């Protein structure tokens, strides 16, 4: 389907939904309802996609406007129709079952929003400004919580508080769009100008998140490919960098590292053998000196400001003797220890789970100053969570 066809379909759907809705009540004007229905369909095709959170549909903000602009009957008709058309227009998920499920989720989320709004609004007779705002906030929260519940059932994870920026942007924009449309007691009533203009910051947020997502994907793929270069060149065992990056990230999360520290750790893990590509080939029968490889990798990463923290981690991985005064419990020191343990573990097991017990034993019996006890404990917890090893005592 071309873009024009898609657009026409959105408009037609909006007209149809609103036309039907207008027959059953006298909430908003027919033109407004047509445009809002079309907006519901159109925004459902776009999602706010923050990095460490499941995507949020932009249509949530339009639902907030509809909650206030339409009568409950109109609302139900527009939501049921509008989301149905959107479900037909979307490109993913491909499978009919998943698509239908998503449709039902959306309708349920909208219903919850309407329920919360009505419940709060009708709890008192006088609709003060505070009550209206509270009802709208309740609708926004209810909608997001409902979508969280569905995500938790589907993916068995719930976003952390730190990753809730997009939720906040969506909720506040939705409230403002709804207030801007209808006003409160006739005050601050802008009609469609309200939702249109107050959606601009939300659209800006959406665009910024898109830029972040595509740049991050490109960055991750680039370092993944460079990490794999050493493997494809036969200098490192196949899959080593990716496995070490996964394991190190999980250990970092276990040790409570921040998002940016984890990001640097992942970069360091993927590229810790990168230097091997630039060394002259070892004389027959010999292998690369790991310290030299790490030093060169670190030097190369440190040439760029943005990657210097990752370079520090790679350098810390092979600082066999801690310099006096260096605190290995934080920053690059700790991350370096994590990388060192993850890399050693992967070299011992060669990616095979059945060697895990033996590898952990080997890591523990190594000299004390080489591996950090807390980091080894984190490794054990991660392995237990992966059900590779029994829970540590």
């Amino acid at each position, binding site marked *: 389907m071309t873009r024009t066809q898609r657009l026409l379909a959105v408009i037609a759907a909006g007209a149809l939904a609103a036309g039907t809705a207008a027959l059953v009540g006298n909430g908003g004007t027919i033109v407004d309802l047509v445009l809002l229905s079309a907006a519901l369909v159109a925004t459902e095709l776009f999602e706010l996609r923050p990095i460490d959170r499941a995507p949020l549909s932009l249509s949530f903000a339009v639902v907030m406007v509809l909650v206030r602009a339409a009568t409950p009957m109109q609302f139900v008709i527009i939501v049921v129709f509008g989301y149905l058309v959107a479900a037909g227009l979307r490109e993913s998920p491909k499978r009919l079952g998943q698509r239908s499920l998503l449709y039902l989720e959306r309708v349920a989320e909208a219903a919850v929003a309407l329920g919360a709004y009505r419940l709060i609004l009708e709890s008192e007779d006088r609709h003060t400004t505070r009550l209206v705002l509270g009802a709208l906030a309740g609708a926004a929260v209810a909608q997001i919580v409902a979508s969280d519940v569905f995500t938790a059932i589907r993916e068995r994870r719930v976003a952390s508080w730190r990753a809730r920026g997009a939720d906040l942007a969506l909720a506040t924009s939705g409230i403002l769009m709804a207030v801007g449309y209808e006003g409160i007691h006739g005050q601050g009533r802008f009609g469609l100008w309200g939702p249109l*203009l107050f959606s601009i910051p939300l659209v800006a947020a959406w665009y910024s998140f898109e830029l972040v997502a595509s740049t991050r994907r490109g960055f991750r793929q680039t370092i993944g490919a460079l990490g794999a270069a050493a493997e494809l060149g036969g200098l490192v065992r196949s899959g080593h960098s990716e496995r070490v990056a996964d394991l190190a990230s999980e250990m970092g999360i276990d040790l409570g590292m921040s998002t940016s520290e984890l990001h640097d750790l992942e970069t360091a893990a993927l590229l810790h053998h990168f230097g091997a590509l630039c060394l002259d080939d070892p004389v027959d029968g010999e292998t690369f000196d790991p310290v030299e490889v790490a030093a060169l990798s670190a030097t190369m990463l440190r040439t760029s400001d943005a990657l210097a923290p990752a370079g520090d981690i790679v350098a810390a991985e092979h600082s066999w003797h801690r310099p006096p005064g260096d605190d290995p419990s934080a920053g690059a020191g700790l991350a370096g220890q994590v990388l060192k343990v993850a890399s050693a573990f992967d070299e011992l097991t060669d990616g095979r789970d059945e060697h895990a017990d033996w590898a952990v034993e080997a890591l523990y019996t190594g000299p004390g100053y080489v591996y950090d006890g807390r980091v080894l404990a984190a490794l054990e917890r991660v392995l237990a969570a992966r059900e590779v090893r029994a829970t540590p005592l």
Partner: protein
Amino acid sequence: MANDRGRGPLLTALCVCLALAAAIGVVVLSATGPTPNLTALAVLGLLCVFAANTSVVLPNESALSASFMLAIASIVVFRDEAQLLGPLAIGMAAGIYLPHVTEREWRKLLFNIGSLGLSAVAAAAVYSIVPSNVVESVGGQLAAAIPAALTYSLVNFVCLVCALSLAEDRRVRDVADELWLGDLQIYPFALIGVLLGRLYVDLGAWVVPLFVAPVLIARQAFASYLALRSAQRGILETLIHALEAKDHYTAGHAERVARYARLIGVELGFKTRRLERLHQAALMHDVGKLVVPNHLLKKPGKLTPEEFDHVRRHEPVSLELIRRIDFLLPIAPTIEAEFADAADGEHAAPIEGRIIAVCDAYDAMTSTRAYRRALPQEVAFAELRDKAGGQFDAECVETLIRVLEDLGEQHGAGHEADVTEFDVPPPSAGIGSAGLGDLESDDREVPTP
């Protein structure tokens, strides 16, 4: 700022005058007119300072929008009581950029306070002329905001042009041409400013946090995009360092290819993001060389057939690496075709790959390699034209040649930017390919530089 000393006093005088004019305005208006609502002044003023100090500098270095929007909002908020003083104070608050204070850049501080204050008060004056019955309705208010917003940016533009022409010692006209209509994207913010101001008047100060939250989130996301983008540039730099460490004869090669590719892309009308992807792809086009042993890359002269076979083993690796990266996908088919020697003139591959192939070949010919010296530019052009339509895309070849001739750039023998010191001087013959050394005998006579 070559002539900073000569024009410096004038610039200082301009900055002081602007700030002084704004300050006098505050004194006169507060002595003669009503005082503005202090809550509104505090809320909007603090927000303005906050916006000015948390702004993320956009790629085009504009960071005006938030304070501009708040200035317009203040014009609406204060229309009924202190219609000039309120906006003037808010505008001045937007000029308080704390790093200017801590780094003692007094001139910049005074300039911003003065020019933003005067821009806001001029806009407010225009808005106050509009009859009251027009600004009753939202439509009327939005319409009335347009001349006000234009006035704001006009005053701001005039101040900026004067200051820049003094600071950089350039003609006023040149600076004006450069800045003229540079900030069209800010006008939607004027309309949002009107609505924000009206909501504030109608419903109270609580609308402010509701409005600020998404703006801040958008900014924060944009900041993390900028950080990621510099990380992405960093990784490409690292890659280039690695390739140059392996083969110092190719110093600067990736950057030059990326630059030529960008020139062609601009000429073919590519948009910003596509240009950026093309640039990155061009920087990475040699990624597969990472797995070629150093001694083969650095070998002077021709490779033996066994060595050449060994080198060719990097080709599938290159493809494998390139296919892992989405933004390199457009160049994968071209590289595949190059490896398969399937230069049959059928161009199903995206144009990005063909652009890079032409630029790669051009730079390879016009720079010195381990196996031969740089060729003169005319020879390189002739070779590209000769293979145009076959190995190379004719449009890309002609575009590159045209752009380089328009720019008057000379590359090749006698014009090399990075002249490499060699252990074994390379021979001065052979057209060679863009690749890793040539096995084929050269049947073409090449003039020795």
